[in-house]
């Protein structure tokens, strides 16, 4: 592989890893607080649709982003209501949200735009444009450093930089602030938080809200930055891959970055090399497309090692008698 195509694959890796990273960090906040969230997929999907739809109608990608985040946080609130207030089963609530999003987005899209469940293509200000970082043009012709800076680091949409900035920010919030301490405690031993005089319910709702916010950004990125508009099921399992990455990352922010970059790389390779000749045998396109998913299973089955999830994960908190 030559240098130019390496840069191209890595550039594509960053674009594809961004929604995974945002969703993975979303799941991290939720699960660290003891709320399992299988509904990352549904929240991203609804955010993708509402951001694209709003951007189409208003012509403003900023409003689109807000609408996407609002939709995702609405579903997060639903999940919180079901699993925190009503102490329901968190997996079932998550699955229900995924079904709800998969069905509703298409139905509403058809009703509003009559284009077979998609939104019209977004143009101009209805889409996030690339940001050119300072000196990108100047440095362009410097060997090695130039292409790396100009083609790989510069030229992404603002949401990509937001996603990558979220990693240190998440780490800081979790491990350096009072809120982070309580959030982690509530996922490990909610009774300790309760007897310390802190609201378990409040802390968990805050975590779920952050999860909704990040999923919303991830969904909006898919429809208004990575692609230009919403199509049916456009998340394509990214919510589940983000969950896999979360386990792979052992619920840690920096590991989450590496894990999602790995999954992003797999997707980038699959996209670029649609068919590979191996000594006369052509690897079919379908296998290449399935590769990231197959490797997800392989990695989860074999390479994770002992990943200890938050101890109180998945269980509603009930005061003991």
């Amino acid at each position, binding site marked *: 592989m030559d240098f130019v195509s390496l840069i191209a694959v890595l550039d594509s890796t960053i674009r594809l890893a961004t929604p995974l990273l945002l969703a993975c960090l979303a799941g991290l906040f939720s699960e660290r607080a003891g709320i399992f969230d299988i509904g990352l997929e549904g929240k991203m999907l609804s955010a993708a649709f509402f951001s694209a739809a709003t951007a189409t109608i208003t012509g403003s990608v900023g409003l689109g982003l807000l609408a996407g985040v609002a939709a995702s946080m609405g579903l997060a609130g639903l999940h919180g209501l079901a699993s925190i207030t009503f102490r329901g089963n968190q997996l079932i609530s998550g699955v229900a949200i995924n079904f709800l999003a998969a069905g509703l987005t298409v139905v509403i899209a058809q009703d509003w735009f009559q284009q077979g469940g998609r939104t019209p293509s977004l143009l101009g200000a209805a889409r996030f444009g690339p940001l050119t970082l300072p000196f990108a043009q100047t440095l362009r012709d410097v060997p090695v450093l130039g292409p790396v800076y100009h083609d790989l680091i510069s030229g992404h949409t603002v949401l990509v930089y937001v996603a990558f900035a979220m990693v240190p920010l998440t780490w800081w919030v979790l491990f350096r*602030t*009072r809120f982070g301490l309580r959030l982690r405690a509530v996922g490990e031993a909610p009774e300790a*938080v309760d*007897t*310390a005089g802190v609201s378990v319910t409040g802390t968990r709702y805050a975590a779920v809200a952050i999860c909704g916010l990040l999923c919303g950004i991830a969904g909006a990125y898919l429809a208004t930055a990575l692609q230009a508009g919403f199509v049916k099921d456009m998340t394509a399992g990214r919510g589940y891959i983000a969950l896999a990455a979360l386990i792979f990352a052992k619920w840690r922010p920096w590991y989450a970055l590496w894990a999602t970059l790995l999954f992003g790389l797999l997707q980038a390779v699959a996209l670029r090399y649609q068919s590979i000749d191996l000594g006369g045998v052509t690897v079919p396109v379908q296998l290449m497309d399935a590769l990231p998913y197959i490797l997800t299973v392989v990695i989860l089955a074999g390479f994770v090692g002992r990943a200890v999830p938050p101890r109180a994960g998945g269980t509603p908190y009930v005061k003991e008698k």
Partner: protein
Amino acid sequence: MEQHRPPDPAIELKGISKAFGSVQANKGIDLRVMPGTIHGIIGENGAGKSTLMSILYGFYKADAGEVFIHGQRTRIPDSQAAIRAGIGMVFQHFKLVQNFTVLENVILGAEDGRRLRPELFRARGALKRLAEDYELIVDPDAKIEDLGVGMQQRVEILKALYRQADILILDEPTGVLTPAEADHLFRILDNLRAEGKTILLITHKLREIMAITDTVSVMRRGEMTATVNTAETSPEHLAELMVGRKVLLRVDKPLATPGKTVLEVEDLRVTDSAGVARLKGISLNVRAGEILGIAGVAGNGQSHLLEVLGGIRPATGTVRVNGAPIDLSGRCSDGQSRRARGVAHVPEDRQREGLIMEFAAWENMAFGYHHAPAYQKNALLMDNAAIRADTVTKMGHFDIRPPNPNLAARNFSGGNQQKLVLAREIEQHPDLLVVGQPTRGVDIGAIEFIHQRIVALRDAGKAVLLVSVELEEILSLSDRVAVMFDGRIMGERQAAQTDEKELGLLMAGMHGGAD
């Protein structure tokens, strides 16, 4: 504090009542505890002690009544309010975050600012001072999961003191401690009292009440039946107040007349699924007509020993019952084959392993013995009527209340649940009874009964292997005592020739004197 006027009580409760559905857990409770004293609260399970303390700590809201803290009427709607009122609580089951450090646990919920570092720094200093003042020595950077229970308890006390508590409630604090750890705890409580702190000690151990408290209140069936000065009472008197009748605290048993060896265990080894060696070469024997007590702090391999003997865990080594070896491979070493060889097993956790809580008493009574010919109607069907009748008979023998075979196991009290399991196993007249924690969470009245039954089995010429974390129970029931520590037998003593001090050293892993 003014000289001419007695101080206000640190805690004063007036007419506290609380009902759960139709059950009146607290009925018009009045209580006065003076500052700088240790006040004990004793009572049987379900007497309402924990409910009362939960009300004081804001976990429950009382239906009626008033709380005064240092003379001030105080409303305590939640734990936050209790903490503000200067009340700290050390729960029986610790409320700690296992993978946090001591320091993080101490500041959780008591952080002043939004950022952690200044708070952690402040707490480190405070912990150092508390350690010096009260012998509360803990490594602030240790993770909770790496600490023993005694240390974890200190962290709980530190949590309360860090929140400026001057009233400390301890719920059954010594249940999980070695005698040496308990003594250390009492020294800490002594220091706290000397500093003017007020301590409420909830326990069912009369010995502790006598050793450390200034005054003691007795609760029975949701009511405060008596409050006395500890110096003016005796354990026998307190037991009578608790139960409402005279109770025999010491087990009266004739001298053992051991016969032939029933159980021989040689070099028994167990490695658990995580690869940790749990039994590291256990050898022991029990003879007919004797009780061998296994003492030790919970988690030193006693549970694994019980499970191997009961046939629910594979092991290596040799176990012989009545001279013939039994299979330990786990392939055909189930409970059935053990029962066929005259081994009965009363598991440590009656609710998980001894009973199916949703099933009726008569169904539970048949478990393990459901193949018995007496329980069969024909080749295909069981004779449920016969099982019910048999259950009623056994319920009579063991004074199980209510004597209703159709009631689900869940609806019996802890003591009666335990009696159901004991009745099922003892009434089969096994050669060897393997019994774990026979009186855990059982009322004092029922304890007396259960102890008498176990001694009666021994006197009928049967062998008994008793595992208990209650040293008093081990000493009063056993003829011989073996102490387990870290998967090994640290030593064996004749019960009549040893005491708590010597056994306590062995339990802590130290060889006490000549072996």
